[in-house]
């Protein structure tokens, strides 16, 4: 009897689905699990880039060093400000532009095309453009701010922590808002128009229509978008590195920057890996939290 069940369990048909997903599993294992396991193992050693074969086991020393480092607070604050600021700005600005593009007006197609352009611009090019615009002496943005009397003389954006982070957030927003705009616009267009018509007949104002129809209609899309944006901001490296290299004095050094700096600029692979593992843990925590807060409640609904 048992043998019969076992034979049936191992029949060709029952194994077929596993065979189908095997290539994907192998790819995921090769590209995800093996590197993660290696990173965790490395984080427990003092391995340096030039002496990989001579690594010594140091236990949790790298983690202790990071959590007690004078830069720890600055790095965590920079990461939080960048992630929360970047996600919020991208979402709000994306929503604003999506609302405009969701209306009928002459040249809407052209406006959509123009507004999506930043997304297609490579990050390196984007940073060069922003650096020129923010140049203390020759930057066009500084010129207008000077004319408006908002800044004085050769205002340097990268010479203080708040303005350096603001500059980075502006460049990030310019790069990322089209993503928010596109996803939210797609969501808005899937909301039945009848709901708006009925609300209008009932005398609902534009704000009320947004509050009671648009926002609830975008709940699912919003939850996906926020997760995507959070993960992207956590891992973003190019814009920050090219603009400030984490300066001044680590004020814009997010976890990703700090990890790269130690692993590749200072050759401390073990320490860099430890910071990478911390990033992974935080990202996992956020994802789990997100699923508990958003996805489960949406599924229950």
């Amino acid at each position, binding site marked *: 009897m048992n043998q019969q069940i076992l034979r049936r369990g191992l029949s060709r048909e029952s194994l077929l689905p596993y065979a189908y997903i095997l290539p994907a599993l192998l790819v995921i294992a090769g590209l995800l699990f093996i590197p993660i396991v290696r990173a965790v193992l490395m984080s427990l050693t003092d391995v340096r880039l030039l*002496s990989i074969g001579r690594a010594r086991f140091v236990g949790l020393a790298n983690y202790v060093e990071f959590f007690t480092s004078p830069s720890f607070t600055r790095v965590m604050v920079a990461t939080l400000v960048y992630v929360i600021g970047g996600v919020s700005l991208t979402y709000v600005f994306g929503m604003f532009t999506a609302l405009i593009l969701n209306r009928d007006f002459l040249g809407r197609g052209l406006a959509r095309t123009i507004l999506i352009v930043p997304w297609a611009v490579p990050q390196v090019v984007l940073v060069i453009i922003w*650096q020129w615009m923010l140049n*203390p002496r020759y930057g066009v943005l500084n010129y207008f701010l000077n004319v408006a009397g908002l800044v004085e003389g050769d205002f340097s954006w*990268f010479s203080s922590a708040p303005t350096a982070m603001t500059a980075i957030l502006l460049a990030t927003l310019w790069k990322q808002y089209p993503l928010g705009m596109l996803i939210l616009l797609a969501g808005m267009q899937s909301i039945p128009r009848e709901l708006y018509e009925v609300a209008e007949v009932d005398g609902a104002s534009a704000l009320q229509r947004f509050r009671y129809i648009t926002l609830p209609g975008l709940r699912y899309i919003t939850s996906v978008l926020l997760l995507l944006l959070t993960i992207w901001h956590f891992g973003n490296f190019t814009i920050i590195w090219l603009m400030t290299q984490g300066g001044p*004095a680590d004020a814009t050094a997010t976890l990703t920057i700090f990890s790269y700096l130690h692993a590749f600029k*200072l*050759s401390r692979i073990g320490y860099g890996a430890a910071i990478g593992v911390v990033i992974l843990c935080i990202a996992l925590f956020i994802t789990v939290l997100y699923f508990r807060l958003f996805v489960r409640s949406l599924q229950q609904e």
Partner: protein
Amino acid sequence: MLRVLRMVLVFSLGVLVATLSFAAGAQEDDDGMEEEQIVLRYPHWFFGHGGNFEEWINGAVDAFEAEYPNIQVEREHVPYDQYWEQLDIAIASGNAPDVAAFGGNLAKYVAAGALTPLNDLIDMEDVERNFSALQTELIPAADSEEGRTFALAFDSGFYLPLYRPSLFEEEGIREFPTTPDAFVDMARELTAGDRYGYAFMNNPGNYNEQRIDLIIWTVGLGGHYVDRSTGEPALDSPEVIQAVTYLKELHDAGAVPRDTDKGTYRKMFATKNVAVIIDGMWMHGLAIGWDETAAGDFETADTPFPTRRVPGFAEVNAILADSEHKEEAALLIQYLANEEQQRRLVEITQLIPPRTSVFTDELKADLIERWPWYERFIAYADDAVPMDPNEMPGELKVEVHRIWGKYFDRVLFEDMDPAEAMRLAQEEATNLY
């Protein structure tokens, strides 16, 4: 038809034979013996650099290949800002080149066992007799245990004040300042409109370039960031604190351009948007390349510091430990430091040849006649002290630079007290040991 086919066949055979001989990479010597064709991989930031540096290195390597026809040098151009990262990754992944150029970070590679000792590969007697102290003292110090020679210098240089005399005339400044305080006043006076009196690297986060100006000032004031007797950092020494304080004063006075990288402010010097910089002898060639008017309006000055000490460096070539062609690689690095190539070096790039025997009185007189401003560089050559002493453990040097730069940022941009900032920097740097 048959004739056409025969022609095609003959042509194809010809192409095949030519291709095979080329691909085999073999050539026959006079005795008809086959000589192995060796390819040396050689990354250097000079290749593709443009201007004088590229002219020198390409000419030298061309001459080397002509003299040793069985050795081909594969020139790998890697821009300086990506060079170290790419080299480290190449070494770590077992794909190291045969020869590579190094700078003040040589000790890091020696400590990692990435390089080959040269003592049995090159003519050490020639090195001892004919090279400057930057080669004979600085390079062996990179091997803290045995003092072996792991590299051969191909150029050396140091930093002196450079200025545009026409701007001094415009402002009625007759003499170059001789004290740091007078230097700060001069920078203020020269700052007007689109022009800055002075420029130093204050791009936040760029600690590698920042350290150069910090070291210039610290060394000039009589100190160093390394305690050379112990190899430990000396970031809280009075000279370091003084250097940081003066640079902060210049920054706060608005006498230096902000958010400007080194390449840009060097160009600003060439176009007279910066009046004074403290930089190397190569700046003359660079400035003329950007703006020809710099040719007759370029002058050097004595340092405004209480000492004549200037931070000097040697750029060196070394053979990687994994190279399979060590002897041929040794031929190349010796060739780049031979009399002829060293003479070409100074004539083309104005860099100081580490092979001091080349620097004859006759050559010096010839150079001064061509470039009067060069006289002061010759006069200071013996006052150069190592910019990045090899007594400091190589693998920690970059980290110490970063810590120094980080706290310098806090002084510049967060108004932290220089003494307090340097105390914290010293504490953090000492913890690395």
